[in-house]
């Protein structure tokens, strides 16, 4: 696939600011020509690079589908969206910002539950005592399924949560959650506690390179140039 190299970067918030800072420091300042509200940008000194401003989760999907060549997004979204990441892309740099942990948390009042193994045992009791499976609220379906399977927890059911996941147990919509946390304050404020072995992923912003880039020597060289610049 010839043509310019497409670099997708987050379109809002701290993640966008930190990303713009990263490239500016590397001497590859990104600017949005003309219209400040546009979704396309250019990179200083590299005419053949097209910068796309997208939401972090869209970036993960585009990397999977091969419609962007390089992307910056959270590792959590990347691994959630692309369970077989190695087949589609590889992480070429960890960027040191956007850090957050994906964790399993249970109600603080469940004092008998410290580990995933406890959670497994409670899920059996729970199903016997209540008319439904123990529910885990999350937006991370794939990360949750894989981690729970590794830990041998089976008797649960995922309920989708697209916002304020930490409020689900108090609202009676779920019993446990899998969510992202940086300081743990939000979890504590909602009377939830992270399980001792409940860390699924230590996530941060990463630069990811789609495997398709290597098929085009010109693109591959451009990608190497960008990578070298931010590595310095």
């Amino acid at each position, binding site marked *: 696939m010839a043509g310019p190299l497409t670099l997708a970067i987050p379109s809002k918030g701290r993640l966008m600011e930190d990303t713009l800072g990263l490239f500016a420091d590397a001497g590859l300042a990104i600017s949005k020509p003309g219209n400040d509200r546009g979704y396309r940008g250019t990179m200083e000194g590299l005419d053949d690079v097209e910068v796309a401003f997208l939401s972090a989760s869209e970036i993960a999907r585009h990397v999977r589908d091969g419609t962007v060549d390089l992307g910056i997004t959270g590792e959590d979204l990347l691994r959630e969206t692309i369970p077989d990441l190695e087949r589609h892309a590889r992480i070429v740099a960890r960027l040191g910002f956007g850090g957050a942990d994906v964790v399993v948390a249970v109600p603080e009042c469940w004092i008998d539950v410290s580990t995933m193994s406890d959670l497994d045992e409670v899920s*059996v009791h729970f199903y016997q005592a209540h008319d439904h499976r123990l529910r885990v609220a999350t937006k991370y379906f794939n990360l949750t399924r894989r981690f729970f399977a590794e830990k041998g927890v089976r008797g649960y059911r995922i309920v989708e949560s697209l916002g304020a996941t930490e409020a689900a147990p108090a609202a009676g919509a779920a019993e446990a959650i899998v969510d992202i946390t940086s300081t743990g304050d939000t979890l504590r404020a909602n009377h939830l506690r992270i399980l001792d072995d409940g860390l699924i992923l230590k996530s941060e912003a990463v630069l990811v390179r789609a495997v398709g880039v290597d098929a085009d020597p010109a693109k591959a060289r451009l990608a190497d140039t960008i990578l070298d610049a931010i590595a310095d």
Partner: protein
Amino acid sequence: MPGKTADLRAALDAQARTIIDLFAGAGYGFIDPDILQPADIFLDRSGEDIRSRTYVFTDPAGAELALRPDLTVPACRYYLEHEPAGRGEVRYCYSGPAFRFQPDGHDELRPREFDQVGLELFGSADAETAEAEIIALTIDAVRAAGLSEFKVKLGDLGLFNKLLDGIDMPARWRQRLKHHFWRPQTFHETLVRLAADPGAASGREVEFMGEAYGGGQAETMAALTGRLEEGGIPLVGGRSVGEIAARVCEKAADREAPPLPRESAALIEDYLGVAGQPRDALQRIMSLIVAAGLDMSTSLAAFARRITLMQERGIPVESCRFLAEFGRSLEYYTGFVFQIECDTATGPMPIAGGGRYDGLMSDIGARNPVPAVGCAIHTERLLAAVRGEI
């Protein structure tokens, strides 16, 4: 996969007709359960691993539906609808599509939509006769379809449960071991821990409860209520103080309990290692049981009777293989299980599988328990095996 050719469709239909005719001749009435099923049954009854392979969607009215991942649960629902009072033995057979998401990608031998042909026998009071009938008809069916080279694998989850019931240990340990049967590694670790230091897994409840730790249920409940109030910790997450206290008490009891005797742990491991021709396996199990001083004569007599009944129905029992640890990844099996496999370049490929699942009917709403045994045949794989394509 863009679809099946007319020739393939015709071959599959002809194969299904052959098998259904055979089942009908044996007294199995044809049923055609719904393809669209309420999602709840699959989500709540089978847990997340089946759910993650089930196509679930919301219809325009907001109802959560599933494309049936197999025909067993739909056949059970059909039975409950048509036989609300139950009536002795009921025999059903079916043929139709089922749908499963293939997480590693789908292809001809791991299709996401496939035709399942199967049979179910509900309400039989004579367990071994019913089991022999189902496995014999399944073998007759794959033979009628033209398959001559295949292997038969047997297992018995009921026997394993009886063995655990016979070994002296706290009920909660037994429940834990039965629960982990499906995961050999976790099972082994649990067994090792119970035989070494059963209280090792105790966690923060010791610290949280302080002096109140290790009391009776009522005492623990009272202390727990007090501590949650003091700490301003709300009771969320669906479990009552009683449920949490009961488990705290169980964990406290684990710390006091003497470990599982090493001989008992060894007996369980030895049993799970049993593999071989059914009669040899029976001999081996008997000698283990006798050496341990346990009485499982009823279960073992049933095992022996089942072998005899299978033989009488023309199954070459000496070429079957019994594996004590052979279970099925579907949690609903409770007793006799079997699988028919063909050898392929990449290892054995299951063609048909079935067994006893006595708990499922009650699980999906039957007022009284309904004994059930059945089998499903993967028709695309059967056809490929008959044609020598795998």
